[in-house]
């Protein structure tokens, strides 16, 4: 899951122009790997842990959004801003101590920026995310300070979240998205820093989600975690926080290595901050260490380091914390994942 940036955008275009997310839709593939232009917003989101040749850990995040402006429906111009493609690229290196990130935005058009139908194929100038016929994802993104060239190969089946990919986000049934995840992607490739390529290997998690209406008006933001556990199981959990405390909605799914999935109801999922960190950049206070309870299991999340805040106020305008975390269960290391904390600077709306 994720969302963002555009979440800061008022709903000036009325939702009626877009297709609603309905419970009885059956996701079909490869069609649903591709773009869904009828929906307001869509994203492909990859996070993961990498290891360099000398065993140094790195975290990375790659996100491509496709956003329908709801404008220029009849505009024949090739510059008409009907859809925007927004991409975020971030790298967490404990040696640097703060998140490195770059972002780009462009209108779809001229074959310079697009999200294609039929399979995952998203491009923004020279940044690209493509899913090959064999299921492999290729990421090629070079920013001004660093870049990634990664190949991500599935090692497990995809995971349809919630009710066969119909993922509720609130008490109303239309507050939902279509949502599938590809956990345990095996990563090889290079990280380029200071014009020097470094070979890396690692494990990643991909989410693809699309929706037209998302957040409840009472929502303040959300906390989300996706983790590849060491025993081959996968955990995803989120809660949508209510403005004056409490939660609007919560959800978790835990799939073991054999493919058995346990889904948790909102009341079974609980996020408890253990330690907070105040950003020197934005003054926002993030619960960077969390305890997450999924029914009887309690997971403890510890950040790779604190300053993994992504401040894109210069471009798309949002600020969130998106960081590599390690998970432990009963005091024992359990796995690695990514924690996302949004809405801590200003309430998100959608």
């Amino acid at each position, binding site marked *: 899951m994720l969302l963002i940036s555009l979440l*800061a*955008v008022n709903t000036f275009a009325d939702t009626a122009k877009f297709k609603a997310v309905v419970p009885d839709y059956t996701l079909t593939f490869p069609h649903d790997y591709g773009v869904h232009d009828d929906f307001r917003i869509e994203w492909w989101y990859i996070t993961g842990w990498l290891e360099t040749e000398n065993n140094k850990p790195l975290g990375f995040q790659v996100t491509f959004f496709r956003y329908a402006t709801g*404008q220029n429906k009849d505009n024949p111009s090739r510059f008409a*801003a009907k859809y925007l493609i927004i991409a975020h690229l971030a790298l967490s290196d404990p040696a640097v101590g703060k998140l490195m990130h770059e972002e780009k935005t462009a209108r779809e058009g001229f074959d310079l920026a697009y999200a294609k139908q039929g399979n995952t194929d998203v491009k923004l100038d020279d940044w690209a995310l493509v899913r090959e016929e064999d299921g492999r994802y290729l990421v090629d993104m070079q920013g001004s300070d660093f870049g990634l060239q990664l190949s991500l190969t599935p090692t497990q089946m995809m995971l349809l979240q919630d009710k066969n990919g119909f993922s509720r986000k609130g008490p109303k049934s239309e507050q939902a998205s279509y949502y599938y995840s590809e956990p345990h992607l095996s990563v090889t490739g290079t990280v380029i820093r200071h014009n020097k390529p470094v070979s890396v290997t690692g494990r990643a998690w991909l989410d693809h989600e699309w929706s037209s209406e998302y957040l409840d008006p009472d929502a303040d933001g959300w906390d989300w975690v996706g983790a590849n556990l060491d025993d081959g199981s996968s955990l995803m959990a989120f809660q949508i926080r209510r403005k004056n405390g409490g939660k609007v909605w919560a959800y978790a799914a835990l799939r073991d290595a054999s493919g058995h999935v346990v889904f948790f109801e909102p009341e079974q999922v609980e996020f408890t901050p253990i330690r907070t960190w105040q950003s020197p950049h934005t003054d926002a206070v993030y619960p960077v260490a969390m305890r997450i309870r999924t029914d009887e299991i309690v997971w403890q999340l510890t950040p790779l380091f604190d300053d993994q805040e992504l401040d894109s106020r210069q471009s798309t305008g949002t600020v969130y914390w998106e960081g590599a975390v390690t998970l432990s269960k009963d005091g024992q290391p359990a796995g690695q994942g990514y924690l996302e904390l949004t809405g801590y600077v200003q309430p998100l709306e959608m």
Partner: protein
Amino acid sequence: MKTASLSRWLMFGEWRAHYVQLLAVILAIALGVALGFSIHLINTAALNEFSAASKNLTGQSDLQVHGKQSMFDEELFPMLVQYQGVELASPVLEFDVVVPEKLENRRDHKLKVMGIDMFRATEISPDLLGVTEEGNQLDGLSDDAIFLSPAAMEWLQVERGDALQLRVGLQTITLRVAGGLVRARAGQRLAVMDIGVAQWRFEYLGLLSRIELKLAPGINHETFKVKLDDTLGEHYFVTESIEQDARVANMSRAYRVNLNMLALMALFTGTFLVFSTQALSIIRRRHQFALLRVLGMTRHQLLRQVILEGIILGIIGSLLGLAFGYAIAATAIHFLGGDLGSSFFPGVQANIHFSPLAAIIFFMVGMGVTLLGTIVPAWEAAQAKPAPALKSGGEEMAISKRSMPWFAIICLTLAMIFTQLPPVFELPIFGYLAIAQLLVGGVALMPRFAAWIFAFLMRIRGQNNSGAVATLVMARLANAPHQASIALGGVLVSFSLMVAMAIMVTSFRVSVEEWLGHVLPADLYVKAASIGDQGGFQLNEQKALADLPGFARVDFFRSLQLILDPVRPEITLMARPIDMSDPSNTIPMTDAMIASTLLPQDVIPIWVSEAMVDLYGYDVGKYVTLPVGMGSQQFFVAGVWRDYGRQFGAVQMQLTDYQTLTEDYSSNTVGLWLQPGTTASKVESVLRQLPFGDALEISWSGDIRTLSLQIFDRSFAITYLLEMVAVVIGLLGVAASFSAQTLARVKEFGMLRHIGVKRRQILALLAAEGGLLTGLGIMLGFVLGWSISLILVFIVNPQSFHWTMQMHLPWGWLTIIAAVMLVAAAITALIAGRHAISGSAVRAVREDW
């Protein structure tokens, strides 16, 4: 130390006694410096603001890509985004739109609109990003959103959220003011929209004005530019911001340089005043200097003394001038705007910045002029033999050396040679030098002329017995011509400059008037609210117009802008029906043209304005290539015509040729000839009843003519002002030299009073002397001024504005200024002499100096 206090005593003693002359000199220097400095300040302020404003629009890009026509196919954009070495490419669509609510102001009803891609412009031109309502960042993409600079909001009287109506061709569309452009420069009127929306709503689909490029780090700009130039071919220009600046500067350069030159001329007139005042002061002090020499002051010390006086006057005058100049510039900018009403710098609000370097330069110029006016008299004072100088009556002898006819002849010869030289950096530098040489030469010849003419008059008068005063006047003027002619320097220079300017402006104005008659043959002209290069009338609208009743003839015109050289402003291409049997029926041709029957076979003829010949070498009979239609097309230059409207060049061609080449059948302007008996009001109502009648700009050619002449007069207002200042300086010169001379002649007048000449007669004598001298100055000034006007009309104007004109002499106006000058000089001489005769006559005779 002691000698320093000696020079101080001498200086202050002199100044205390002759503060009027002192003030006149200081004022003359100050006026000259003030004019030059203020014009410089105003011009730089306007130019800086203009280029800052245009830089604001182009942002921090490394390179820009332009088409040779003002717009080009957007297909270039994706190509450039992916081009090796390009880090960022930002597409820009720039055009002016008509604001219907402002239509009553014919010259000022357009708003500059820039279509940008906000995502790609962020890094290159952040100043152009609109500020939306809080948190509604993507509103800028809305299909009705437009952002306005504060100045534009003020001009249009709108705020965020208001509706704004704009003309597109024959339609009016309504947009919503989505926010402001907070970082636009003060006074800059500008609107920004999303490029996709702009292309769509303003009918520029598929077109771009330019693409701003930011290169990847480490890319060599020069190499990259050459490579890209090569890739893009001849239809595009790759320019650096520096060339952009050059283009902006080029647009107004001739105008600015000419103003500066006029200001220098005023300063130059001041030089003569300084010279004559200093010369006379030295003549008056001949005894004093001789005594000092006898008492033991060396030549060197004396020279230093006189030059020191000049330097101090120069310092005071120049400093005052700088202060005046700054004040004048600030006032002028405040009331007239940075273009002084000439509309060379539209849409900007200039602010004056004090530039120390310019101040130093103008200070030095002021000093130089003073020294120039001081050094010759000082040199002579130092060379004079002290013993004879101690005796009275030596003044004329001392000054007779100054006539220097060889010097005058060299000056005049140089002037002749300079008129034959070509422009330097496209500026008529030698033309101005020739004018300066003419003036110097004329002034140097003056004593000879005066002696000759007054001696001649004397001989005529001698035959009949005339009155005592007349005899005295004639005798003095004929026998002491040098002293008299010094007084004349200022009158001569200022009057001749005035004559020259008057002749030039009149010639220009009459030529423009005739030209307007020629270029506006139809009775009225109808324009679709202009949308840049897009033709407003499509074929069906053209048909509707052509079918209207009441018109004898309907012509369609198509005009657009082309860039032939990236550092020069655009040229105008006009396609219209041209009478092939004799193109001069349609176009105001010069003599350079080839008759249609003699044109080579299978050529497309074009007729070019004089500027095209000067700037691009489009001589008659040449084959030239213009970016018209698909690819570049070869044309044949069939003639040269006069164009006072576009100093950067214009080309005319047959409308049918244009349409064949481009398949563009649209038109921007329609010329309509009335059938006899049709009234103006009827015609207008017929036109207004057309479906697109509201969007038509209807102009009667009479109105256009009046308006054009008004603009003409406005842009020459500043030159009239400069002329006035030159005249004031000239009269100051008369005042200074007459008061100096009458003071020097106190004894003479005292003696005359002793022997029974009445006070009134002495006043008459002074007035007569002043009048006669000025009369001679006016006569010679007229000849000199006429010669200068020849240079202005046939050299300076063609070289700086690339147009020629016919000579026309404004006799009435010239007579009036001559009379005014004459009376003013006589009165000045009278006033200056008045207190010379007010003192005791007895004492005057006894006084030795």
